[in-house]
């Protein structure tokens, strides 16, 4: 079993305790309580209604689709959906919050306790508890770099529906926290309740972290805010754990507070302004009645739940005979899995899995493109595989053809034709070529025959050079073996 990472301090070994709060933008066309749009990147305040701007007398009306997406997500987290939930006002003052309160859910969230499995590598799985999921409004956005002494306020995000998903403090190091965040992102993308885009802020993460001696009571925790990538979250947790250990080992006490992670300096620092605000004076929003959800509605979304990452991975292992690792990589994102299933249809699934992971994903990684942005689609890649499998081109040539397709476009067949890359499997042609090489290099031949077997590779190399790499290596090997060992 995998051991969680423990940290070594001056006075001994420390263990981390981590819980994550994820804010996921619900995939809706309009806002949680108004009919203005939720598109990313619109001009300032162009997607704001009088409700979002908190004009006097405006009343919120809830978006039915946001409720449905929360129910679906709750099911995907193996969680209890509550028949009755209540919207509360969370009161604080900040320029990005025109109402002076955020409509959220405090005592009675729409979704209660659940769990997900996270993958810790080598087929090892750990169950992480979910505390709750609730619906709430997003705040507006402040821009600080437009003016020397003013901040600009854009309320386009104000009122966008968010799901806040709170884990139990079940993670014991940053690897587990990273695996949890990746898995949760994968799940919401599978069911389509959030696009999971961390760059655009559709998915954001706060981390609660404390340290303790192994097995002892939980220590005092700090909350880290402003984390917008998996990598930064893992680094922030590591930095913060060492900071807390140092304080305790020097005889100090960790103060419970909100801290900001600065990815440029890789450090966390105290957010003083949030200290005073910690009393949010929650109370039920008098503008909104309790949300009643019928059992029929709850069951309907349970039945409609698509295949989730864990189920898909198991099916890939079983139906396609893939290893845990390959199946895990291919099902980590729904777009990968869909791509694989199109390409592997009617082809050798293991071969396709291997090729897609080692060559196709590597290429996407290199140019930092998502699978949706790939210049080579599933169909085109499939055509390339057909050329390998029917022996038209060698595996080596296929990589070059793929690179050409990826960089300059074009179909595999056309590129092979145009560049004359067809593999030469014609035994007669290759045999006469081999005979000529042997004739012209009698010195090498006698060395080989006197026991320098490494020279075999040299002969293969000559054949490849003469054919521009298009000779079928298997045929070449056979021919050379026969001729040289005569």
């Amino acid at each position, binding site marked *: 079993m995998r051991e969680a990472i423990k940290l070594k301090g001056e006075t001994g070994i420390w263990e981390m305790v981590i819980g994550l709060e994820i804010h996921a933008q619900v995939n*809706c*066309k*309009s806002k949680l309580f*108004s*009919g*203005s*749009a939720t598109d990313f990147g619109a*001009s*300032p*305040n*162009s*997607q*704001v*209604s*009088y*409700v*979002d*701007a908190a004009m006097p007398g405006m009343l919120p*009306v*809830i*978006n*039915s*689709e*946001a*409720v449905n997406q929360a129910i679906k997500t709750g099911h995907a987290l193996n969680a209890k959906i509550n028949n009755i939930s*209540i919207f509360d006002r969370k*009161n604080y*003052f*900040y*320029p990005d919050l025109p109402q002076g309160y955020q409509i959220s859910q405090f005592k009675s969230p729409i979704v209660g306790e659940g769990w997900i499995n996270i993958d810790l590598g080598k087929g090892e799985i750990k169950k992480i508890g979910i505390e709750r999921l609730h619906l709430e409004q997003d705040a507006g956005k*402040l*821009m*600080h770099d*437009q*003016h020397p*002494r*003013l*901040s*600009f*306020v*854009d*309320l386009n995000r104000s009122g966008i529906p968010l799901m806040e998903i709170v884990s139990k403090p079940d993670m014991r190091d940053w690897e587990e926290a990273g695996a949890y965040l990746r898995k949760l992102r994968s799940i919401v993308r599978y069911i389509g309740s959030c696009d999971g885009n961390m760059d655009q802020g559709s998915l954001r993460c706060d981390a609660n972290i404390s340290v303790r001696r192994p097995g002892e009571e939980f220590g005092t925790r700090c909350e880290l805010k402003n984390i917008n990538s998996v990598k930064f979250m893992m680094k922030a947790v590591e930095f913060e754990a060492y900071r807390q250990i140092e304080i305790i080992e020097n005889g100090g006490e960790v103060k419970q507070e909100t801290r*900001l992670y600065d990815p440029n300096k890789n450090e966390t620092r105290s*957010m003083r*302004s949030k200290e*005073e605000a910690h*009393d949010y*004076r929650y109370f*039920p929003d008098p503008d*909104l*009645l*309790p*949300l*009643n959800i019928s059992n029929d509605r709850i069951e309907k979304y349970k039945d409609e739940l698509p295949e989730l990452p864990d189920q898909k991975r198991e099916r890939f292992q079983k139906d396609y005979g893939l290893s845990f690792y390959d199946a895990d990589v291919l099902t980590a994102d729904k777009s990968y899995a869909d791509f694989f299933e199109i390409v592997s249809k009617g082809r050798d699934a293991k071969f396709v899995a291997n090729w897609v992971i080692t060559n196709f994903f590597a290429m996407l990684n290199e140019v930092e493109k998502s699978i949706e942005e790939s210049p080579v689609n599933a169909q085109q890649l499939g055509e390339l595989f057909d050329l390998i499998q029917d022996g038209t081109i060698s595996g080596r040539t296929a990589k070059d053809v793929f690179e050409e397709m990826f960089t300059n476009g074009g179909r595999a067949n056309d590129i092979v034709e145009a560049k004359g890359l067809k593999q030469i499997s014609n035994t007669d042609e290759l045999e006469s070529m081999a005979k000529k090489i042997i004739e012209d290099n009698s010195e090498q031949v006698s060395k080989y025959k006197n026991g320098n077997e490494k020279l075999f590779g040299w002969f293969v190399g000559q054949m490849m050079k003469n054919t521009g790499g298009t000779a079928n290596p298997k045929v070449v090997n056979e021919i050379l073996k026969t001729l040289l060992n005569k």
Partner: protein
Amino acid sequence: MSLDKSTLERVAYLARIKIEDSEIEKMITELNNIMKWIEELNEVDVNNVKPMTGVSNNSLREREDEVNDGGYSDEIVSNAPEKIDNSFTVPKVIE
């Protein structure tokens, strides 16, 4: 429970209500009366009564997910004390 001066000042600050020093004593008396009344209410045993959040038995009305509002940024900022183009502006706030 009775309210002291520092609690009153904290509550006022949280609600961003400005209270003059001369008003403090009067406020404490008034709020303590309200608290006393709430304590009286607390004497009633409501253990087996479901919480009531409203007088009607209606459930929350929901709307379809349709975009039918917004698109008037000039109106949104028209009453703003300070604005540049179609953004509100406030004294710089940076963490």
